[in-house]
């Protein structure tokens, strides 16, 4: 093999270094209108009255859209998987986060569009905001959605994702020590250098050409087609070259609205979010609240884990149910813990909706589980590398949801780093492999969890 494994330069490297790569903002279409959004100034409010006529009447304004212009107002990021939608494309009668789009204007230039937005007459009735996931379940908590403050549509209409494996009571009874902690990683902005940008051109054929910075051309095309209620052949997405995404550009944040404005105005339109919109109004990585209690033995075996996760989804669910499920599947990290009781909730708050970001669902639990592991090593007085090797998942071990690990490398990556940092391992840890457990590495409590790697 010569090409695979070779250090070949980027396919688009020459274009990148000569400024020839065409991002959406670089596409030049004469007669293009600029788009600006009216966004909610409140974290939570009812919309009492709205009159867009003052904007429509302005010279240079070609189209104004509100929820009334959207053929299918609610279509969720996970609707294709049968998960109910909860987010209107443009706010209907309530805003649930500061920055939520309510109406959009397409005008001859950005200045005119911005001025038209400021002329839209709107009255709000402010409502109490819920910002702390820990209070979302209280009877006196502000209510964000009619159906409540957390997502209730997991399998069998469960209101949370749960994992049950082994015998958690046995684990806590037989533990020498129970170590309990709380882990709270922050919301993160994707902050790609290219902000959300979209151009849409209405073609003479009646099709729409959508220049998009999406990370997912077909996914986004499906979202636009659903909102517009048109077949896919009415749309042509042009893209594939994205100025950074990190998950944030899986959200189809601009394409549908620009398509509607192009249809209504009959003109090409362009929407380039400002950096401030990108920071303050775009979706973020979720903040998470995780509580872990591990049942451990004095010599560092993790017998069982009880865990509660409150996933701060922000105002709408978007991909959060998916992210929480993925989180639950990986809540033991790189280790084999045979007895588990996990409960996780997707909780709504009045902050911008959260979405996928690099490591979706797992970055959070990697932090929680690994920091917890370091703590356990510290309180037990055992070596933090040895305790990890001891509990590391091995071929034939099973994951929280019963899947057999077939090609794990936890042992070898830990050994490699131990060597790199000059940590001399004891012989039994130095010679350990990823191969199936046996001997001292297969204590009684790990036998029942074993699976057969041939099965998968």
């Amino acid at each position: 093999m010569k090409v695979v494994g070779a250090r070949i330069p980027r396919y688009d490297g020459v274009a990148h270094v000569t400024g020839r790569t065409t991002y959406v903002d670089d596409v030049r279409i004469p007669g293009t209108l600029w788009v600006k959004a009216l966004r909610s100034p409140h974290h939570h409010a009812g919309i009492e009255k709205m009159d867009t006529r003052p904007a429509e009447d302005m010279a240079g304004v070609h189209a104004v859209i509100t929820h009334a212009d959207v053929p299918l107002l609610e279509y969720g990021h996970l609707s294709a998987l049968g998960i109910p939608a909860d987010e209107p494309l443009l706010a209907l009668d309530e805003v649930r986060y500061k920055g939520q789009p309510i109406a959009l204007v397409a005008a001859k230039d950005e200045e005119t569009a911005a001025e038209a937005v400021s002329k839209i007459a709107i009255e709000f009735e402010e409502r109490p905001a819920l910002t702390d996931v820990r209070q979302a379940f209280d009877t006196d908590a502000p209510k964000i959605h009619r159906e409540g403050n957390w997502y209730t549509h997991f399998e069998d209409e469960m209101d949370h994702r749960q994992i049950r494996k082994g015998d958690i009571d046995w684990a806590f009874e037989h533990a020498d020590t129970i170590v309990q902690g709380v882990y709270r990683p922050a919301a993160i902005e994707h902050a790609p250098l290219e902000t959300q940008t979209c151009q849409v051109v209405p073609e003479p054929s009646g099709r729409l050409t959508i220049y998009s910075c999406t990370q997912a051309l077909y996914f986004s095309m499906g979202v636009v087609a659903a909102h517009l209620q048109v077949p896919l052949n009415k749309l042509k997405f042009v893209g594939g070259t994205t100025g950074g995404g990190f998950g944030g550009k899986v959200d189809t944040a601009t394409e549908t609205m620009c398509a509607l404005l192009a249809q209504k105005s009959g003109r090409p339109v362009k929407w380039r979010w400002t950096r401030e919109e990108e920071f303050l109004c775009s979706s973020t990585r979720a903040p998470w609240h995780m509580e872990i209690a591990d049942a451990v033995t004095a010599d560092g075996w993790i017998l069982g884990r009880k865990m509660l996760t409150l996933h701060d989804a922000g105002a709408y669910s978007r991909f959060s149910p998916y992210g929480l499920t993925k989180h639950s599947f990986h809540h033991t990290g790189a280790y084999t813990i045979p007895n588990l009781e996990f409960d996780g909730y997707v909780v709504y708050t009045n902050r911008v909706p959260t979405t996928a970001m690099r490591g979706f669902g797992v970055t959070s639990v990697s932090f929680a589980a690994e920091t917890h592991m370091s703590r356990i090593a510290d309180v037990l007085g055992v070596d933090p590398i040895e305790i990890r090797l001891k509990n590391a998942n091995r071929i034939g071990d099973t994951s929280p949801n019963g899947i057999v690990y077939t090609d794990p490398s936890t042992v070898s990556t830990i050994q490699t780093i131990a060597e790199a940092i000059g940590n001399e391992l004891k012989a039994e840890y130095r010679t350990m492999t990823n191969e199936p457990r046996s001997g001292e590495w297969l204590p009684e409590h790990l036998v029942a969890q074993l699976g057969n790697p041939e099965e998968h």
Partner: protein
Amino acid sequence: MAKHKGRGIAAIEYPTGMNQNGDPSQAWIKVKPDGRIDVFAGTADIGNGSKTIQTQIVAETIGVPYDWVTYDNSNTDSSPMCTGTFASRATFVAGNAALKAAQQVKQKLLEIAGKELEIDPADLEIVDGEVVAKGAPQTKMSVADVAGAATFGHGELITGTGAQLKPYSAIIDSETGRVDTPPHSAISYATCAAEVEVDDETGEVRVLRLQQCFDVGRAINPTQVEGQIEGGAMMGLGLGVLEDCYPYYPDVEHRGGAFGSYLAPSMEDMPQIDTILIENPSADGPYGAKGIGEMANNPQPPAIAAAVHDAIGVWITELPITPERVLRALGAKAAGGGEPRREGKKIVFDEELSVNAVSNGGMRFEVPA
């Protein structure tokens, strides 16, 4: 002023492909009359390098030089379906689609060449753009000539299509969370050691070094893998010590709306980053590859948290580990607090953060004694 150094490690795992699968990628390939190869796929390149990776896979699989292959992902009229570039799926899932399409093209090239050379296609192989008889390298025909023969002699268009899909089949048992088939395409693994320096008067944490080992399955392009891992390391550093959309979380005020007030890592935050790649091939990834793009920012935050504890003896479990959090933790420790509560065999940390301390009873986290 006192600065304290510390080191911590963390080991992680991460799946390739969408959780529960059901995320198809497709590719199709056509061959020009001179044997040059055009690949069409709907996979966005977000900087991750999927244009390069898929081009490499196609060139390798067919057996032609890399620069014979063009790659077009520019629009949905000419490119087939791809679920998208996320979930660490571009190399593995979309790469497999390109691989399968290339295998079809190779087979058709061999069939045409077999007719031209009057040799069983099974006895032919393609090396460096030439179809060669196995064991008789002097009997050969360039891929260009094969493509010409197909076009002008046999009246055929050589194409290949490929689709990769693990069906959305992982039914989750709502009680236990058990699934019946693997809900991912592969799993990859990594370990990170972080070295930090903490200023105990200002609380500033500086990450000095990150040593990281990633099992990448197979490095289709080692430089690009390093690029992903180095970029992920800095994003992980941001998660660990800098970035926060809500500096007063759960409060929603004082958000930063600019690069000066939202602290994305800058060039001067960069520590020494050492990268060690392990190739433990996956069973069904293209050439054994696994997806590592996302997990690249997962091991640093816990390694940094452990290193901070090693340096100054406090556990900070809210991210990022800001100077304020460092000073608050050091202050609590100096005041004789900050220690976990011990009750029987329980050691309870962070009680003030628990839902039990904040909720009005709507949600509790109860742990057996």
